[in-house]
């Protein structure tokens, strides 16, 4: 296993975890893009961030894989927003990913001597 020996480690990990993060965020309620971004920022104080393009590229990819589904929602007096909700397939994928990541993190914790934040 070749891991780059600089900050790119985190980048790669983030990239790999992007699907997991977004699926988790929309697990409980449908959210639009900005809500997803701002919740993520709030909950990890800026450690994890999507750029505008990467957030939507990910959302579109998830949607194409039918893990989330979007719809335009119009509310009185507001602009219409596209909201994303998780699909059944998405829930299954989320469960699998959670499992994988838990094992991975447990392994890392043990091997690399990580400590929970």
């Amino acid at each position, binding site marked *: 296993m070749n891991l780059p020996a600089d900050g790119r480690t985190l980048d790669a990990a983030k990239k790999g975890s992007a699907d997991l993060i977004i699926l988790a965020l929309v697990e409980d309620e449908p959210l639009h*893009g900005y809500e997803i971004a701002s919740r993520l920022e709030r909950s990890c104080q800026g450690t994890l961030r999507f*750029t*505008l*393009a990467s957030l939507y*590229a990910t959302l*579109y990819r998830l*949607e194409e894989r039918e893990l989330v*589904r979007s719809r*335009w929602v*119009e509310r009185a007096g507001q602009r219409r927003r596209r909201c994303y909700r998780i699909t059944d397939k998405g829930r299954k994928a989320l469960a699998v990913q959670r499992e994988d990541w838990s094992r991975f993190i447990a392994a890392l914790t043990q091997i690399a001597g990580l400590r929970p934040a």
Partner: protein
Amino acid sequence: MTSPDWPLEIRAAAARVGVHLDDATVEELAEHLDDIYSAARRDGCSDEEAISRGRAALQESTLEVLRHAPSRRPAAPHHIAPDGGRRLNMMAALRLALRQLRLHRGFAAVTILVLALGVGATTTVFTIVDSVLVRPLPYRDPDRLVTLWDTSARRGRMQERISPVNFMDYRALPVFEGAAAWWRPSLNLTDPGLDPLRVNAIEVSGNFFDVLGVRPQLGDGFPAGGPFSVQREPLVVISDRLWRTRYNGDPAVVGRLLRFNERPHLVAGVMPPRFHYPDDIDVWQRLNWDLTQHSRAAHFMEAVARVRDDTTLEQAAIAVETLARRLQTDFAQTNRDWTVTLIPLLEEQLGYYRPALLVLAGAVGLLLMIGCLNIASLLLTRALSREREIALRIAMGASPRQLLVQLLAESLVLSSFGAVLGVVASAVALPALVRVAPSGIPRLDEAQLDVRALAVAVAIAVTTTIVFGLVPAVVLVGRKIAADLRSGERGSSRGARRAYSVIVVGQVALACTLLMSSALLIRTVVKMVTTPTGIDADAVVTTSVQLPIPNVVARLAVQQSRAIADTHELLLERIRQQPGVVSAGAASVLPLELDLRLPLEIDGDATPVRADDRSIAQYHAVSDGYFETMRAALASGRPFSKFDTADAAPVVIVNEAFVSRYLEGRQPLRRFVITNTRYIGVVAQNLMVKDGDPRLPTSLTPARFEIVGVVKDIRNMPLGQPVEPAVYFSSQQFPFREMHLVIRATTTTAAVAAVRASLASTAPSVPMGVVRTWAEQMAEKTQDARLLMTVLIFFGVAAASLAALGVYGLFSWSVAQRTRELAIRLTLGARPVSVGAGVVRQSAALVAIGLVVGLGIVRVSEAVLTRVLIDLSPHDPGSLAAAGILLAVVAIGACVPPAVRALRVDPVEGLRVE
């Protein structure tokens, strides 16, 4: 200050990195940036700061990652409506199409207008053709009904009225379930307290309504099963129109006695509204004389027959022709050369209108096709101009299917708007057209837009959509645009050019067909209107008066006829004395209408063995003052005077056609013509033919009439047919009960007042016929052709304009495409003029091909065209050349602006185009 135009900034940013974002994505990203901006403002940031946060978010984004994102086109399956239901892909495509068309308003407007023109014209003409030509007549099994006509090819009479005796023979044939016959007497209706009225009437066999299969709305009609014709009790059936206008719709009119020509007739029924068969008839009088007791040589009846259900029309035609051949031998004296023709009722009813409507339908079809070709070229142009956009979409992963759906949606939107607008236009135009159309077109007043017309409009819309939306789309998508994109070349490929050329040739060809047909019709109408009629009588007022058979003085027919002659003469004399009247006269028939053709002999010529070989001429009776009033010129001799009475010497005036036919090279004046025609039914009697040998019941002494004058030909046949030989008798020597009065006066009002006053003092119970000036009569006689011409001119101009637009479009596009090539050629020293000439040359070649094809189409449609052209061949070189040249000038003219543009190509700019 408010937030910036985020969509614009996003597109600009995307364009900088060569990414094309679809509208939905841009909208979503813009919302996001706006949220960042709003959040910053809520956090207390200044406006500039809030904006720069948004911009920072955009700038740190590498939009390239969205390049390979699945298309967020509305057609994508994830697109769900706010109502929760799934939208059809097509619906989303339609929304996008609407937006696209809003962006290209000019293109949309032109396309929709062209389509609306096509759909409107087609729907209108379809409705007219449908209600006049296609919809069944309101009779029982109308396709079993035929009309019977005597025909004689040798005499050039292809549709002559039938002889009553022959009719009775044909009627007995087993191929017919029944046959009815009638003739047209003139009836005056007098009711106490009401103005006397001339009614349009036929005297008809008692089975008439049974043959047609129509029943009166009131009353029983003529009793069924009675004898065919001889019935002593005079019965009439009247029309709904007469019933409502004269008797206020009083049902008690049935069973009442009405006085027609002074004889009481029992009203046996009232027909349903709009029943006026055979034409504008208001009174059907039951026949009360024996048809078999008439003459086989007298052709004056009309007939309709119902062919049995188990017999085809062809079989029926063969049966009557076989019988006609037998009658030819059995009654050679009268029936030689005569046969009979069956014409289906509908065809006969339509007459000129049938070919005219077919021409109209053809014309509108052509116009629609030109319109569609135009739309095809518009759509093609637009598709070509979007080549890069489409290439980008394909590069971004849009599937060909998605692109097709999108292009299809756009043309669907266009054609729907066009169809709606066209139907609205048609709804407005149809009533207007019905109002201006000749009143004689049967059933035109029933024409209304209905479901079927709407179906036609929808069908046109759908067809244009599929054909003309799909073709450019297929051309484009099939052209491996990705390759073009890579190479950066413009896609002025041969395929598109060829498609374009075909469209232009098609447009020119169709426009050429329309213009040539219009030109032929124009020539026809001009010819009709300018045909010399032999008279100069535009201002002359015409009307007619029919005197009843007088029951005065004596029962003798001769004395009655003398009384009629005297009354007419007195009436004319009184009219001439009225203020404002310049001159007045009377004739048994007015010009342009054919009167009875009867035999006569030229004194001194050998009498032919067979009666049939005798000279035939039209018999007219005219009063003194008639030729003067109509300003007909005499070639020699004198006109009639008031002294040419029944007691004076018998005299006639002949026309020039008579002289050249029967008296070629001989002096006509003081020569004698001999006739033994004494009666023309109950309408006229020749007073100069006397009773002969009293021992022989039918013996007559033929009368010798001296030719005292030769009148220059007055047209005595419908327009377009040659003048026939005619003999004019003095109306005092050969009086007709019904005479047409002609009055030249200072004003029309003065003329009408003069007739009214004189009639009131001479024959108060006699109604005055319809009053019209001669100019109005002429206009009426040419109105069918004029209306058709007007419509065709309109279509022709529309077609030529559309074709010119097509040519212009092609060459504009072509020059734009070739700017670079032209620039290179100019740089290499080509002279600008030769470059421009090249463009014109190309267009001339296409136009020439189009003209040739168009000429071919005219040739193919000759059969129909011939039937609407009067006295003009469909090959008339003048008309064809005029139309061809006009179209060529317009079409080649249309490519001048693009050619000029080609001339002005700046080599440097041209090379920098890409």
